[in-house]
């Protein structure tokens, strides 16, 4: 009984901000503080969401968005990890490339979108590339850093036991760098969702970003907010999935004492 009560107060503490925000959101248009034509109350948004779910539109757009996000992420993760491991392992190369990478990282994917359209057209390819570009840098740079910062004592220890280069790379450097690599992947995941929306707002006929923009243009405001909520849920879902994967790879970190 006590446990149950603790559970409720615990989850109340965590969600109180969210609950207050939704209450305020409901209240503001109803009380006339904000014009309800521009800000639909959550109740209207929920019924729009349900209608979109029933018609199958939401699922259709969500699946297309998800597919784009996953393809872009998959390319970014494989590219970022392979090159990151390679560059971090050979420290000399990292020195040559660091300035280049730092400037590329600062180059917003949105700013480069016109370039991608020029080069690759308005089709799926340039959408994938913008997502790839946005999520690549945190993955690549974190992987490089992770490999670079592997404790030399561990490498020496493996060497003193007669380990081969292959063993050191696969069994020492890779697991030691894994936490940093995952931080990069999770950061890349959130950049991926952000750039996805931008990509879908230009020259697209499907996806959640398109749904949001199209609903606004046709003045279907509750649908617009429904699309935004759908996007937020998708972002949370991706982050949650990445967290789960991270957890299964770094279960040894459970309960590492602070300051250890």
């Amino acid at each position: 009984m006590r446990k149950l009560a603790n559970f409720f107060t615990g989850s109340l503490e965590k969600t109180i901000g969210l609950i207050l925000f939704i209450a305020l959101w409901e209240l503001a248009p109803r009380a006339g503080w904000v014009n309800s034509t521009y800000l639909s109350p959550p109740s209207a948004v929920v019924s729009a969401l349900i209608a979109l779910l029933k018609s199958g539109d939401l699922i259709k757009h969500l699946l297309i968005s998800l597919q784009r996000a996953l393809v872009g992420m998959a390319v970014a993760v494989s590219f970022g990890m392979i090159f990151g491991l390679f560059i971090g392992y050979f420290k000399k190369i990292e020195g040559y490339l660091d300035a280049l990478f730092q400037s590329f990282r600062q180059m917003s994917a949105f700013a480069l979108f016109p370039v991608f359209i020029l080069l690759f057209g308005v089709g799926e390819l340039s959408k994938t590339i913008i997502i790839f570009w946005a999520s690549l840098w945190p993955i690549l740079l974190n992987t490089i850093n992770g490999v670079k910062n592997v404790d030399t004592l561990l490498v020496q220890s493996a060497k003193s036991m007669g380990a081969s280069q292959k063993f050191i790379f696969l069994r020492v450097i890779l697991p030691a760098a894994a936490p940093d690599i995952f931080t990069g992947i999770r950061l890349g995941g959130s950049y991926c969702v952000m750039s996805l929306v931008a990509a879908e707002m230009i020259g697209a006929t499907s996806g959640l970003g398109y749904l949001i923009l199209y609903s606004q243009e046709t003045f279907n405001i509750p649908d617009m907010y429904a699309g935004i909520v759908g996007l937020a849920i998708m972002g949370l879902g991706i982050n949650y999935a990445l967290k789960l994967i991270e957890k299964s790879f770094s279960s040894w970190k459970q309960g590492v004492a602070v300051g250890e």
Partner: protein
Amino acid sequence: MSKIQASKIHRQFQVNNDFGKKTKLTVLDDFNLQVREGEFLSILGPSGCGKSTFLNMLAGLDKQDGGQILIDGKLVSDRSFDRGMVFQGYALFPWRTVLENVEIGLQIRGLEKKEREEIARYYLAMVGLTAFANRYPHQLSGGMKQRVAIARVLAYQPDIMLMDEPFAALDAQTRETLQLELIRIWEADKKTIVFITHSIDEAILLSDRVAVMTARPGKVKEIIDVSLPRPRSEEIRNSSEFAQIRQYAWSLIKNEVTKAQGLQESIENDQGRIMVQPILSLQQKFKDMIQKRIGGHNEKIG
């Protein structure tokens, strides 16, 4: 024949001095040492005398600039299966359990999981950590971590065990317990051990011979034969022979320690001299500066 034969070893490092200029620092020069098969030899020296550098060379982690090191009559190679090293910093793999850590050397040697586990469990029992097999290193105390590291080396049966100040980071009680455990383990199977330390007591308690090093550039100043009987126990520290050897070792090393400190100070002295007397007027000024702030603050609170 000697197990290890090091002759005329020379090693220097490129270092940046205080002014950011590159200079050469000679760490070992004309270093000669022979280690006998199955003996426990300690290398005792002041900090910075190059004793760890020599051990790294034996482990294949560093290379000398001159001279040669022979193990069993062959030149030391980078990669070999017959040496084991215990580091001061434990060097356990944090993502592996205690058991998996002990297994790693066997894994490198290509043993099957079942064989690895059988051997690892035997050595975990030897160091008294059977109950901790499935814990992770961060859940262990320093002494337990070093026990794991010792079990890990013992498990893959190297000819030579190299120990680089393995107990220096531990508290006094734990250090003494582990010293006695190491004696027990070594007296059972008599591996060749080269043990680095800066503690005279530790060197005498454990070793058959103690090589005393000079300050940098390091070489062997003298080798002391420790004729204390074995098996050794804790009480041997109180014997008069022990005290005699300790006194002799201290007389050898005293000058070197002062010299080593001199080397340090010559670097530090240029930067700023240590103040002998506190300057009271300045201290009063600092107090006033602080009081002015907290005084105002206290008024606000009041």
